[in-house]
């Protein structure tokens, strides 16, 4: 099993959710993060001062998926999150040793 983690633009969250779901992802956990990367920050002006705010708001999406749908889910995220402009974000994949559903105690694939 894999954990697919994507950093995306906040307003793409809904699109990504729909597509991941369609691609077979049964669930998803998202959180608000701030990102810093090639994009460069946005300039905010506050009265006297104009600051480059390095960190821009992003959303982190996490999906635990079975190995056989990893590439579909990745494609779904790519399709849902891409605007083609800088700052679209990253996807990373990690291996999971174990997955457990708390409610039932099921482990592995069944827990997804």
């Amino acid at each position: 099993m894999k954990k697919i983690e994507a950093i995306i633009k906040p307003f793409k969250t809904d699109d990504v959710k729909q597509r991941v779901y369609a691609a077979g992802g049964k669930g998803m956990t998202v959180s608000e993060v701030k990102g810093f990367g090639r994009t460069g920050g946005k300039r905010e002006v506050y009265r006297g001062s104009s600051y480059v705010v390095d960190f821009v708001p992003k959303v982190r999406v996490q999906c635990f998926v079975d190995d056989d749908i990893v590439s579909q889910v990745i494609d779904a995220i790519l399709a849902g999150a891409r605007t083609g402009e800088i700052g679209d974000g990253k996807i990373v994949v990690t291996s999971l040793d174990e997955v457990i559903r708390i409610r039932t105690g099921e482990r592995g694939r069944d827990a997804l």
Partner: protein
Amino acid sequence: MLFGASLLMASGFAGSAFAEGKPAEPPAAAAVPAAPAQATADLAARVADLEAYVNNTAPKSLSAPGPGHNAWMMTSTALVLFMTLPGLALFYGGLVRRKNILSVVAQCFGAAGLVTILWWAFGYSAVFTSSGSASGYSVLGSLKHAFFLGVTSAPNPDYSPWVSQSVFAMYQMMFAIITPALIVGAIAERMKYSALMAFILGWMVLVYFPLAHMVWGSDGLMNGLGNAKAPIKAIDFAGGTVVHMSSGWSALLLALILGPRKGFGRRPFLPHSMVLTATGTGMLWVGWYGFNAGSAVAADGIAAGAFVATTLAAAVAGAVWPLIEWIARGKPTVLGFCSGVVAGLVVVTPAAGFVSTTGAVIVGVLAGVVPYLACTKLKQMLKYDDALDTFGVHGVGGTLGALLTGFLASAEVNGNLNNNLAQIVGKSLWLEQLKAIGLTMTFALAGTAALAYLLKAVIGLRPDADHEEQGLDVLDHGESGYHMDEAAG
């Protein structure tokens, strides 16, 4: 809650509900037996007293707080309190980083408590009694009303014939509270709470009470309007010098002595909630009607004039500032709207009851331009850390307003200017204003320097660097502004 009507009727005697209760006039029936001419004259005097109430002039014998005026002054007092709590606390609080929001709130509350005690003990007396000095002018009054001795609901005709002195004392107290609270803006996010409280204590005595007495005390040294013997014949309707210049210039100096916040200029210090700031701005605007129109100490035509001037200046400056941003930087910001509104209110403060509607619009335009330049250009050039722009808005704006008042005040708008100032209004008044500006700056800067260096030596002004980074809320108050986790508790 019910307090008397039925009782009075039951007793068959229309005694005054006014607390001190000396029956102000003979009962109606008593007037009849007198000789007609005398009776008519008596009646005429009584009618004249009632007309005096409507016109807000001094009555002969009807001594009572007049309901309309008293109502307006109670309302105004509540409005000025509203400016500080929660108005200013939110306006400033929104502009600091999340970790310092409560420190700003505590500083506003602390000022309210501390100043109230000083005001009650001796401040009111020092400001609003006359010193009785032979010269006819003075820097401070007497201790006659210390601990509010003799301050009752009866009007004090030296300041207002139809407003309870006790209400007047509360009204003026709200000014005394907000003035040091304004300083908080410049030194926000880096001054120890104990040091600030000690500073305010000293500053009220050394700077505020003398300035307020000199400008508004019946024998004040700069009270051009009310004191024929004042050597500086300046005018200040609602506190351009006393409130805004004094706090603004003191704030600048204190900020310089403190030094900048850790990270200033390197890291972005973003307002943690522009929503709070905008909310506070609305409250300040609303409350400022008490501040300016209330400064007529009556609900009369002068109050009306001040009300209108305040509105026009605030709205116009609140349009001009973001318009400049729009032109110069492509976007009008909400902070620009808020800053413009507050700048308009500040600049019109000394002028409010003296200028025409056209004058108020001129004030508004300049208030949108000059403090804008101070907050953006000047500050960037000189690189002082006036955290929330107390100096840029109140220091510069107050000074501008005091000067503009010299040019724009008109005896047509405010007939009182014909009393002592007929010779200079519209002519050399601005020179007197300049003198008042100079004297105000002297008091503010000297007092602040003395206090700040003293406190720096004795108790220290700033927390250590790591504590500053962790925020004053936890350090000084052991609290955090928000606990927004779903999981909390």
